[in-house]
């Protein structure tokens, strides 16, 4: 396909967010070019744990996540490609009474917002339902069964195929080097294969690299590339249904659709770095935490570990919309640990903003100007 060097929109980044924005723009009739510096999905979109939830610890994030979860659940139908969503649920395990109390308060908020509020499970109930758990030290759990998992590769592929069908030009191994600005207005991007013009807007959906590209035109975005690791084992018969979260050390385990056990854990090595280098400390820490929680995992073989990025902002929430400093320059990044699940709603809302000038009220609180103006979104409860 010969790449046209002029389109209404240039989207930088072929991750799930860039693809979803491009798909929704094209659906509204716009012409779109995506430039991706490596292959489609090569950033965090193929490195994530594939979980989607509606339950966050503030209203703004919960509302956005709920809008997205509803769309994620019916994505297969909308995109005509099986994205393999399953409602496995999230199970948070608590070691402190005060955390259970806090969950009870949040359940009221979620209920008010129309989000299925899930339920608290006592220790006896946990033992009955999940006989594989070691309950020592645990005071109770919270099960949110509206949540679930998608297949990240299938979702990426589904958007990709639909983008192509709608005429979006997707260019792999083309790296954006700089946003081009004329009279205070973004007009395109300079890339490794020449300039691409954007008649209506340039959209930066480049994960943590969004910050670097914004800097090329003097726009400062507080987004850090925090390295995050994950690992999988050999596949087993699916027994561990929900995503099991050990809130004491902030680690989790679950089974993928193929039955592999996927583990992750916070570590002191979750630091800002561009490197995808794995560490030897991570698998030890994740295995310790989750073998303690699910002792039967001790005999399961570990096969693979990898690293990706959380594009992290000071309030752990995304940056969505036009920047103030340059006209026609929009961003969608800073998703921290939960950008994939937000992609269905974010793509749709960003396209409405760009093509129709409509700012969806659920997306409005996430504007890039909030950091400078001190309107951060407060995360009230950080467990762990």
């Amino acid at each position, binding site marked *: 396909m010969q790449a046209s060097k002029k389109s209404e929109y240039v989207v930088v980044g072929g991750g799930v967010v860039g693809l979803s924005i491009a798909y929704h723009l094209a659906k509204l009739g716009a012409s779109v070019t995506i430039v991706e510096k490596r292959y489609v999905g090569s950033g965090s979109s193929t490195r994530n744990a594939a979980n989607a939830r509606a339950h966050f610890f503030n209203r703004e994030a919960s509302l956005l996540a709920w809008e997205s979860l509803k769309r994620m659940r019916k994505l297969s139908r909308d995109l005509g490609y099986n994205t393999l969503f399953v409602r496995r649920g999230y199970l948070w395990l608590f070691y402190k009474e005060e955390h259970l109390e806090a969950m009870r308060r949040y359940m009221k908020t979620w209920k008010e917002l129309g989000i299925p509020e899930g339920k608290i499970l006592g220790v006896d109930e946990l033992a009955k339902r999940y006989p594989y758990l070691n309950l020592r030290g645990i005071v109770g759990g919270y099960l949110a069964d509206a949540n679930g998992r998608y297949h990240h590769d299938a979702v990426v592929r589904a958007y990709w195929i639909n983008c192509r069908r709608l005429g979006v030009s997707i260019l792999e191994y083309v790296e954006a080097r700089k946003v081009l600005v004329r009279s205070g207005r973004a007009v395109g991007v300079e890339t490794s294969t020449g300039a691409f013009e954007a008649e209506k807007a340039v959209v930066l959906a480049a994960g943590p690299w969004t910050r670097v590209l914004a800097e090329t035109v003097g726009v400062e975005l507080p987004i850090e590339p925090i390295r995050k690791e994950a690992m999988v084992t050999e596949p087993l018969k699916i027994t561990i249904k929900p995503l099991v979260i050990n809130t004491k050390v902030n680690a989790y385990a679950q089974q993928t659709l193929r039955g592999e056990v996927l583990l992750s854990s916070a570590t002191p090595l979750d630091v800002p770095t561009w490197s995808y280098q794995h560490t030897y400390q991570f698998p030890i820490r994740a295995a310790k935490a989750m073998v303690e929680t699910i002792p039967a995992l001790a*005999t399961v073989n570990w096969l693979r570990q990898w690293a990706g990025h959380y594009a992290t902002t000071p309030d752990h929430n995304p940056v969505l919309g036009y920047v103030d400093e340059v006209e026609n320059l929009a961003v969608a990044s800073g998703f921290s640990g939960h950008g994939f699940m937000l992609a269905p709603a974010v793509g749709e809302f960003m396209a409405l903003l760009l093509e129709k000038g409509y700012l969806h009220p659920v997306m409005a609180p996430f504007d890039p100007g909030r950091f400078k103006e001190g309107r951060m979104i407060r995360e009230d409860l950080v467990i762990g």
Partner: protein
Amino acid sequence: MGKVIVCFCEDVTLDEIRKAIKEGYRDLEHLKRLLGIGTGPCQGKQCLITVARILAEDTGISVSEIRLPTFRPPARPVPLGVLAGAGLEEE
């Protein structure tokens, strides 16, 4: 000719690989994610080089230009219990 298995761990055939290449998946990373090649117990040590060769033949790209997926630890499967009890003190 009967079925030709290229990825033994994940049971992926030559025909499946050729079909995916025809559909436009021209990167080992994409083939890996579409078909599961390279994700079995050997983590691609037996099959990825062969798949690279097939990709080269079918697309006319030279083998040396085909990007191999990153080989990741561990080199061999390790039980989680061994890791958990590793007794290695973290830094």
